């Protein structure tokens, strides 16, 4: 059992420090964009911590849409329960946006665009700082994969009508 520090906190500290170190950055005009939740933990914590470290009070998470209004303000749509969006208006920077899926469809696969992006992404990754993960009082006591294996009843010989009746009965239980 090894203690581990909160990784989101470590990542946020490094990210915030890197942003602060950008030469000539006007923090009063800063808009920070990042992913809302990771695929590994989905904690939704890192960007909040980055915002706190940068002193950004206007934070938005689960953002699907951002529109600049005619007066320069930002209209932000954040995901809330029930497939709905909360609409907020922020007068402008500084602000932070944890992006969800957005409202645009996934772009078509285009290897040329991908290669063009890699020309800047790969050198940046090679310059990434290594960060020691120091002990911070987090203990993983156990980790297990779900063992649930269902005994599936495969029904091949019922008519659509019979299946509908069976499903309706199941739904009504």
């Amino acid at each position: 059992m090894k203690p581990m520090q909160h990784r989101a906190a470590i990542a946020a500290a490094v990210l915030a420090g890197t942003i602060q170190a950008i030469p000539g950055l006007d923090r009063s005009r800063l808009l920070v964009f990042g992913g809302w939740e990771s695929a590994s933990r989905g904690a939704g914590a890192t960007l909040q911590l980055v915002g706190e470290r940068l002193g950004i009070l206007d934070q938005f998470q689960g953002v699907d849409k951002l529109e600049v209004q005619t007066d320069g303000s930002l209209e932000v749509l954040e995901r809330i329960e029930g497939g709905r969006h909360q609409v907020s208006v922020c007068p402008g920077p500084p602000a932070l946006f944890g992006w969800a899926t957005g409202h645009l469809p996934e772009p078509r696969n285009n290897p040329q665009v991908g290669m063009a992006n890699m020309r800047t992404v790969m050198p940046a990754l090679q310059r990434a700082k290594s960060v020691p993960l120091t002990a911070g009082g987090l203990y993983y006591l156990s980790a297990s994969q779900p063992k649930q294996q269902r005994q599936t009843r495969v029904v091949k010989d019922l008519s659509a009508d019979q299946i509908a009746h069976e499903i309706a009965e199941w739904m009504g239980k």
Partner: protein
Amino acid sequence: MDGQVTLKEEIETLMSQRILFLAHVSESGNTLPRVSYEVLGAALKLSQQTGARLTIGLIGANVDAAAETIAAAGADRILTVTGPNFATARYASDAAAAEALCRAAGADLILAPATSRFMRVLAGVAHRLNGSVDTHVTSLEAIDGEVRATRWYYRQRIEGVIRRDPRPWIVSLESGCSTPWTGAPAKAQTEEIPLTLPEAATRTVVTGVRAPKSDEQTIRPDANLLFVAGAGWTKKQADGKPHVDQAEALILDFLHASGASLGGSKSLVDQSGESQSVLRFMTHLNQVGQTGSTPRHPRGLSTCCHGEEPHVVGWRFINERRAVNLDPNCGWARGKADVLYVADAFEVLAKLNVLLSERNQHKSEPAVEFA
């Protein structure tokens, strides 16, 4: 002997602990979100296990009615941060309110519901308190004097149990994982925590909520059934042609008659970007699975959907699962569903809609009212 002393010390330490149950009022303003009562149930259970003292903290424009719904829970104190500035879900004001309540309660462990409103502020609050945070926790228990939290990692593929030393420890609990606390409303003795927001914390204004039109409302977190549509609905059928319009009508009729919530596979919701036929009411918000949501409905019915692992991820917390599709060897047959019906989902759903419609007529009202 040393072990006994250590255990005694641990128990004494736990006895002096404080647990804060943190909640905000619901959108209606006169109660708490449903998941909050589940978290209160978990907080009470944990406080009984550890002997810790329970404090309640409430945020909202006016929390009087909501406080009455939980006044009989037996908390030592009910602290509140109230006022017009705390009516809506805004990061700056909610973080300040939660921070003030946590400091006033002096709690070691802070339990909060995993609502969208709290999920966007709790990590920031933990930073301000120099504490730690864990989100999406599904259960908490005290074993041998230590509080352990269970949560899922890697999109519901691994279940982990953790504990943390740093305090305060903020934990947001998922819905559908604890028995909700119930009790009769009573007059609540509340303590207002004064909080004045700086001007910078009120720059953002919440202007409202944008919801799908009532006849397009397809996501219902509280529904008894999750209906998942796969890409097969938009593919060529037995006559060699796609029947997307028919698929849309069948699915919407089913949602209307059953009151089910609609989920979709990634391949289906992505089709709009690939110039393929699409179900017009299906958006990324409906997507379940690896890059979508992991809903917690008691039952799930999958149709025209052949994915295995991505859907197992999305269906991890669906208790009873049935599937309808034409492939008897698809992933659902491999121990993922309780029942797999090998049949044409178009035909089955058409018949099912007739049955549900007849049933609703007997009940004299549809499962879902549309405007």
